[in-house]
């Protein structure tokens, strides 16, 4: 009997007052009873519109059907066919614009909570399954993956399952890419990422950390000297953008990358961490994406009394996920919308003391279709802050493109591919994720990794 409730079974979560002072996970996850009840909201549509909204092609009605039957192990088997990172996706995917955005139940009421169910199944599996993942028989071919973020991990997992000897090269000292340095503990516990990587290792994937490809080894050396038949470039979009306004290099101004890396990768939130971070009273995070929300919520947890999100458009244009915005608001983050910084003001020691802003209003739509913000004359004011985090986007790192002859990139520095399968202008070299698209989402990067793995398999088999 289907559950005809118009709303999702609510997600238990930490009280905002309490969670804004700790780094523990905000959303606590469904119990088995909640999961079964929610799964019964799925109508099992034969056309599976949700499935078409999933970049990695999970058979969503099939896994939800098993949850409804309380066959959680069976549900995980369905997930496992399409993804190795279900515990991650269930937490960080923008489901509202993908699978859930296509759910028929969403036409009248809320869609089925596909993300929450995916998380439940992945967590259930982690807690209950103890057998090691299957290791495929080696097929004798070597593939190198550059970057261990979501795209690289997905590609490596799919290739390992086909029997390839896969080596993943990571520039930092810990694998995981943005899952480790970017997304905070309270949204994605690092233990989960560690477990996902351990699973890949059990499947035979080799991880080499501290390897900056383009510096210590080039793509050509990987292929010519080290015998990798294909290379998948998934090096992300790691280069932070700044606004180019006066005072941006004052002490106390961070890129979101630096701020989040200090907090997440280097664990600056722990009292025993060796990594310093500003002890702030008032923080302004400039930008309106998910990364900005993460930085603001970290600042709050680090003890800042006042944390602002400063965004030049209005609430409707805010690019962050609705859920992230709501969480931030619940935790007391103040949104200064239609506001744009024009100058960072410093004190006599060269530290930030304030941010001069100008009020904006929305004008005609621009190329992106969003109404363009224009400054309101004579509306400058000063926001008193002692820390600023610039979260206005990132672009791909030039280290690989500058050391790989013949690798075509566009004017933004993104690697150019043929579209579907991620083939670059170099034979045997594939690319995907943010390195190709510019900063996007975890799931799109995973989708690209999946497609590239299939294309690499086809290329090597047909060679």
């Amino acid at each position: 009997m289907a559950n005809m409730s118009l709303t999702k079974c609510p997600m238990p979560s930490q009280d905002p007052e309490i969670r804004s002072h700790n780094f523990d996970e905000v959303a606590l996850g469904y119990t088995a009873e909640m999961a079964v009840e929610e799964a019964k909201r799925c109508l099992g549509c034969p056309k599976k519109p949700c499935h078409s909204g999933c970049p990695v092609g999970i058979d969503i009605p099939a896994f939800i059907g098993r949850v409804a039957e309380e066959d959680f192990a069976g549900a995980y088997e369905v997930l496992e066919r399409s993804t190795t990172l279900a515990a991650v996706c269930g937490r960080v995917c923008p489901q509202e614009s993908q699978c859930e955005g296509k759910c028929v139940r969403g036409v009248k009421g809320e869609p089925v909570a596909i993300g929450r169910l995916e998380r439940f199944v992945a967590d259930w599996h982690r807690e209950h399954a103890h057998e090691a993942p299957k290791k495929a028989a080696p097929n004798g071919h070597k593939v190198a993956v550059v970057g261990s973020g979501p795209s690289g991990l997905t590609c490596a997992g799919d290739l390992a399952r086909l029997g390839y000897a896969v080596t993943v090269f990571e520039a930092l000292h810990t694998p995981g890419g943005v899952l480790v340095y970017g997304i905070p503990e309270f949204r994605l516990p690092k233990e989960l990422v560690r477990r996902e990587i351990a699973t890949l290792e059990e499947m035979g994937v080799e991880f080499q950390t501290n390897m900056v490809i383009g510096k210590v080894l080039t793509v050509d050396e990987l292929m010519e000297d080290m015998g990798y038949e294909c290379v998948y470039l998934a090096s992300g979009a790691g280069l932070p953008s700044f606004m180019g306004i006066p005072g941006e290099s004052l002490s106390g101004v961070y890129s979101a990358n630096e701020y989040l890396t200090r907090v997440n990768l280097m664990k600056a939130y722990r009292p025993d961490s060796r990594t310093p971070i500003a002890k702030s009273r008032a923080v302004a995070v400039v930008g309106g994406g998910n990364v900005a929300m993460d930085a603001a919520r970290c600042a709050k947890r680090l003890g800042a009394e006042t944390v602002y999100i400063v965004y030049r458009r209005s609430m409707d244009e805010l690019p962050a996920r609705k859920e992230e915005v709501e969480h931030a608001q619940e935790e007391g983050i103040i949104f200064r919308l239609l506001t744009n910084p024009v100058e960072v003001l410093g004190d006599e020691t060269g530290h930030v003391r304030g941010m001069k802003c100008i009020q904006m209003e929305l004008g005609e739509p621009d190329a992106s279709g969003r109404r363009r913000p224009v400054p309101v004359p004579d509306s400058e004011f000063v926001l008193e802050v002692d820390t600023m985090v610039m979260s206005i986007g990132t672009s791909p790192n030039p280290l690989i493109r500058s050391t790989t002859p013949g690798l075509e990139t566009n004017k933004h520095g993104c690697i150019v591919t043929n579209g579907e399968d991620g083939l670059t202008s170099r034979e045997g070299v594939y690319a995907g994720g943010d390195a190709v698209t510019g900063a996007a989402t975890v799931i799109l990067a995973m989708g690209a990794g999946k497609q590239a793995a299939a294309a690499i398999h086809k290329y090597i088999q047909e060679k």
Partner: protein
Amino acid sequence: MYRIVEKTSLNPTVTKMVVEAPLIARKALPGQFVILRAGADSERIPLTVADYDREKGTVTVIFQVVGAGTMELNALEEGASLHDFVGPLGKASELDGLKKVCVVGGGVGCAIALPVAKALHERGAQVHSVVGFRNRDLVILEEEFRACSDKFVLMSDDGSAGEKGLVTTALEALIQAGEQYDEVIAIGPLVMMKFVVAVTKKYNVKTVVSMNPVMIDGTGMCGGCRLTVGGKTKFACVDGPEFDGFEVDFDEAIHRGAMYKDFEAHAREEACNLLNQEVR
């Protein structure tokens, strides 16, 4: 991984470590740097490559024990291994076409200046070296500098080694005596480099400085190492670490370098206490 094959104390606070890192040794060039971590929870410490041996597969770093991180690093002995060692990062020194160069080193910065002087000497350039230390006990690499320099001037703040005075005094004297340098390469504390540039600007002698700001990843990701050079924002890790000294905003770099002073002082004190307890 990354075994310490040799550890030598150059002076009471400066240590030289030769580290097994064959892939990096194969590629490293003067002017580039590595980032290392002593243990699994340690800070990432950027250090400019002091030497490398492509055949033995080793990279040499020289560091001053200044804070908790370098204390922890200095506690590792020969035979032990570093947890992480990544590189070679940054751009190599641009030495092509230089015929006569004055290399100015200050304190532990001499460790980075030496490979540049050596490389120039090996290329047949005329090398004048001016190195400065606070006092005689802190002098490092004197013999090595003499071996690759056509002229060598040693300065100390108190006159206990070489001549009394600052490197800038010696440099200015050389320029005034008619020495014509294609370039001055200054590597040392920010204040020293700032004043070297103040001298060379007067005589319009091109000056390259090596910047060593706070950084995390060393690959362009964090932007923490940004500097203002010629009015533009540059990342020391990927655009440098060497820059045209005339263009660098030193005052800003000095402010940024002091950002974590309090935290560092506290961490240093804790590390001292910890190490003292271990000795007992």
